[in-house]
């Protein structure tokens, strides 16, 4: 396929943002799509030959059926396949064993947002918990929770967020999923630039073994409460270990969906500054699409990325 690149100008709004953040290079915000470091050289986003981070996206048309009913068996198979691909191991058991050990205390951090109703689907949570158990972790040492998860006593965390565009942070995936690990979560709302520092809290740092993203039914609208028109069945799951790369890919998917919905650029707002800050300031991973390799598996209709 021929490599294609879209011209992108540095706007006045980028300039103001860059000045406020102390570096112009941190500007991720663009008119409908993010900019990235390799763009000028003609790099194709998320196709790094020598990637800093790998992300696996797997979609299955049968994951969500009529009435938005999620097929739990299909979801389990999707997660297993995606993780096996990501790990490079031969089978599911070996793949999970690479990230979770029998002597771990595991926190499965999902999101259950009663007011917005864009939760991590129960099928995704159940699939993860089942495999963690099969990896040898005793039931009483698996904590699958949103609020109140005892992360301090966990030796391993599995970050299992849904995907939603968010009124205050721009987007909410793996980074915002940890917001309630902070004693002062509201300080990461508008602006959310420092969201990445939560990953460096002593009781959180280095514990995230896997990120398994529920991309079955993401949300791309402005919020703060859900408008059903802004939710779509994407039929996907994503696996990675780099929260910044995961966030960057999901941002691109949601931005593309917004543009399609309006038939013109509909930039995510406020711009999710925290993604670039998580890369440049907190060194949690890469936000540069030229340094990310996205492995796409399964159904590719309307994949958007």
């Amino acid at each position, binding site marked *: 396929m021929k490599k294609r690149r879209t011209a992108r*100008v540095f*706007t006045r709004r980028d300039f103001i*943002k860059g000045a406020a953040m102390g570096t112009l290079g941190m500007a991720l*915000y663009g008119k409908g799509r993010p900019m990235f470091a390799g763009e000028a050289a003609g790099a194709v986003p998320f196709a790094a030959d020598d990637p800093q981070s790998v992300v696996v996206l797997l979609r299955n048309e049968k994951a969500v059926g009529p009435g938005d009913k999620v097929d739990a068996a299909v979801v389990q198979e999707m997660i297993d396949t995606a993780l096996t691909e990501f790990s490079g191991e031969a089978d599911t058991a070996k793949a999970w064993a690479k990230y979770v050990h029998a002597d771990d205390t595991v926190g499965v951090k999902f999101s259950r947002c009663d007011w917005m109703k864009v939760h991590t689907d129960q099928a995704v949570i159940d699939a993860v918990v089942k495999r963690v158990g099969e990896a040898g972790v005793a039931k009483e040492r698996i904590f699958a929770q949103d609020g109140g998860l005892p992360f301090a006593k966990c030796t391993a965390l599995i970050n299992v967020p849904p995907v939603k565009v968010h009124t205050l942070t721009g987007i909410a995936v793996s980074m915002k999923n940890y917001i309630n690990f902070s004693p002062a979560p509201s300080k990461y709302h508008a602006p959310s630039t420092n969201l990445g520092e939560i990953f460096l809290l002593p009781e959180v740092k280095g514990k995230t073994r896997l990120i398994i993203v529920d991309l079955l039914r993401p949300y791309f609208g*402005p*919020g703060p409460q859900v408008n059903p028109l802004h939710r779509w069945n994407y039929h996907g799951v994503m696996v990675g270990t780099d929260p910044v790369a995961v966030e960057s890919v999901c941002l691109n998917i949601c931005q593309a969906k917004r543009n399609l919905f309006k038939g013109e650029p509909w930039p995510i*707002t406020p*711009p999710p500054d925290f993604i670039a800050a998580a890369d440049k300031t907190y060194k949690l991973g890469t936000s540069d699409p030229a340094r990310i390799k996205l492995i796409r598996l399964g159904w590719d209709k309307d994949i958007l990325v």
Partner: protein
Amino acid sequence: MAQSQVTDKAKILAAFPLRGALPPEISGWKSGREDQVFTRDDIFDFMDGGGEIYLAYDFQFVFVREYVQPDAPSIVAEIYQMTSSQDAFGVFTHDTDGDEVELGQGAIYAAGLLRFWKDRIFGRIMADRETPEARAAIMGLGEKIVAAIPQDGEKPELIKALPAEGLRPKSLSYFHTLISLNAHFYLANVNILRLSPETEVVLARYEKEGSTARLLLIEYPSVERTVDAEGRFMEMFLLERFEAGRRVPPKKLEDGNFAGLLRSGRYLIVVIEAGKKSVLEWIIKTTFHNLEGLKQ
């Protein structure tokens, strides 16, 4: 929860007239759990950080009732009591995607979600999943609420100054602060325009001569604050030296679009992302003219 807060909520529930307008049952859906009220003090318990958007308006409290029925989606009715009709209208303009329906002073329905406003009330009724029966029940609840609100309220005076020609349908939003502006349209992560709870802001999109533009019309509480915002926008966004009274012509920016502004007393007319200079000038001129009419 503090005892005083419980008492206050009990008083709100007892005194809220629209509570009585909601039936205990509609088309087989019955009131599921106890009615709830959330005030400015605990709105975050209801909608987490999303409460910031309501707190940016003169929100007083939200009354919440859930309706349930076996083997049917649940329906939640939320009635937001605002201090002014202008802010009820403002909250309504936060998200306008959906189909307009005839209800109250404005209503939009989209796939199981009804949003409407009348006087000082903003309402939001939503089913977990849309079905024909759920839609009928939602509309029925909306009609009962609206019928119990005795009068219409005024829209913000400021919107009368908007040029009518070229105004993109459903593009108008009304708010006060930076957090609302950023939710609609990102200008900058610093408060260049000095927005505050005391400012009134209308944001609208225009289509004219085959191009588009955005208008931000802002009313400040004093001329001094308007001049301050004018100077900041000129220096930080247009990168032009500011002197009180100095007019700066529309400026072509890096993306090829034009931006410009004009102050009129306590009002600031800002046009951004204008594809054509002539459209920008027309919007500013027409808005200025309309404002003169408003002042009289």
